[in-house]
């Protein structure tokens, strides 16, 4: 059994803090918590946690600044906790370097899934020794990065260059939400027009090739106002 992962929780609401700490402990994580940003930052620097859960609405500091501060010296995965209607804040947090976000209120299973995904991604990134994954597998979908072949239930599906680029970028970041802006700058370059109509059109085409019902997708989910999230890779 691998050593216990250490999680740092920065959250000012004591009730929510208690509930998360209890849940994490019962799921076999080591938990530290801070009730404000400054003590959270010093705990992060002192303890070197494996993952940070950060509430954006802290009393003493803007959550975005906390993320930037941590990103100055560490690549530790950060999951942001925020309310539903603040899409702009979420996008800012993701663009500032947060790995993922979870919307208040959330169920424990959702929180655990996000934590597992983030931790797995960071272990892959940290251990260059691991054989680089060359396949993405989820349900009937297989993406072979080396052969540039995408199959659904064994049948080869053809994608345009752009569509393939979008799809592989999402697949390589599977489980994590990718903002419109980062997707556009990855596919069309940093100076591309941030008008995301062309992205929408490409996504619609991908959806029609990939999903049996585009209105009820199985592989790529839309996070309204933020970006897209692809279903987790099973081949890990």
């Amino acid at each position, binding site marked *: 059994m691998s050593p216990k992962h250490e999680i740092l929780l920065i959250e000012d609401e004591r009730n929510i803090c208690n509930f998360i700490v209890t849940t994490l402990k019962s799921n076999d994580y080591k938990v530290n918590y801070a009730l404000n940003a400054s003590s959270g930052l010093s705990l992060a620097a002192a303890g070197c946690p494996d993952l940070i859960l950060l509430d954006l609405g802290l009393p003493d500091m803007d959550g975005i600044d906390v993320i930037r501060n941590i990103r100055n010296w560490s690549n530790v995965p950060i999951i942001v906790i925020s309310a*539903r*209607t603040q*899409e702009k804040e979420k996008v800012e947090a993701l663009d500032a370097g947060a790995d993922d976000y979870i919307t208040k*209120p959330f169920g424990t299973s959702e929180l655990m899934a996000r934590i597992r995904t983030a931790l797995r991604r960071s272990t892959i990134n940290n251990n260059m020794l691991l054989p680089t994954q060359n396949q993405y597998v989820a349900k009937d979908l297989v993406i072979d990065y080396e052969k540039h072949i995408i199959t659904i239930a064994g049948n080869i599906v053809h994608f345009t260059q752009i569509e393939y680029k979008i799809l592989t970028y999402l697949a390589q970041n599977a489980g994590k939400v990718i903002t419109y802006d980062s997707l556009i700058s990855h596919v069309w370059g940093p100076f591309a027009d941030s008008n995301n*109509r062309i992205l*929408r*059109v490409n*996504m*619609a085409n991908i*959806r*029609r090739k990939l999903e049996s*019902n*585009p*209105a*009820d*997708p199985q592989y790529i*989910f*839309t*996070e*309204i*106002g933020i970006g897209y999230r692809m279903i987790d890779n099973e081949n890990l």
Partner: protein
Amino acid sequence: MSKTLKNFILTFCGLAAATIFAMFFSHFAPGNSGNIALIYILALIITVRYTDGYWPGLFFSVIAVICVNYIFTYPYYELNFTLSGYPVTFLEMLGAALLTSTMTTNMKQQARVIAEKDKLLSETEKEKMRANLLRAVSHDLRTPLTSIIGASSSYLESRDILTEDEKNAIVIHIQEDANWLLNMVENLLSVTRIHNQSSKVKKTYESVEEIVSAAILRLKKRLPEASVTVSVPDELLIIPMDAILIEQVLINLLENAIIHAQSAKPILCYVEDGPHYVTFHVKDFGVGIDPDRLTNIFDGNSYIGNSESDSNKGMGIGLSICKTIITAHNGIINAQNHSQGAEFYFTLPKEEVSYES
């Protein structure tokens, strides 16, 4: 001060224009002073239309009469009130001028009074709506809160005598009520996204299928046993909207259908493309809506004073919020019964429409 100046300038311009026009006229058709008087009266009406108060009209008519006498009647360029029958012409013209000026001014004043009344009326209407919403909200929030407080205290007090199953039932009940409260609060929060004064929303171009699928996903998270058959048109539809709000409307309608239809058949959710509008349908195959309630189902207080209010809790507010959201998008929302159940649908304009219509 500046108003007086404006009035004066406008009056002067009207006089000058009438005089110049009349001079042209008399040059080509001399000796026709009746027509010239008519030209002045026409100019007078136009002037009064664009000035405020009685004075400009009065001033205009006196000057006009003098002008006609001085320029256009024999002897030319000389004031002469002794001409035979002239006092009659003079009085006639002055009378006509005064009458039109008074009438036009009166009309303008009446229009202003009516506009003010309308504004006042719509404001009280808004105030009434707000009060209704607040009343409905407090009522709707109190019910689940009471049940949560009651259930949790009975759990704490009689922990020792309750069986494991009963304890579970209590906690599940608390969770249900808390989820319902959350739903409610999200609805209320979404209303704050609508700009208060102009009731406008911030729209961006969004793809319809993404909104529909996100709504279905969130619905399934909340009500895992819900069965919905969903379909969108083959071609991609990108229309302007506030995506979060439209998602909220869809979720409200779907949830309503699931809770109130009392049917095991899956709910139908589909999107229709039209020349100017995109229509979203949510159709259930259940008991339908009581025809008495159809007319005011979106009013937000349709259940107040209704004996079965608790079985319909939240329906009123959820739907009135839907209506607010769709109206702010310049769309239409409606409910109707079909042969096998109820159907809600709403439209969204495909292009940004101007606010005047």
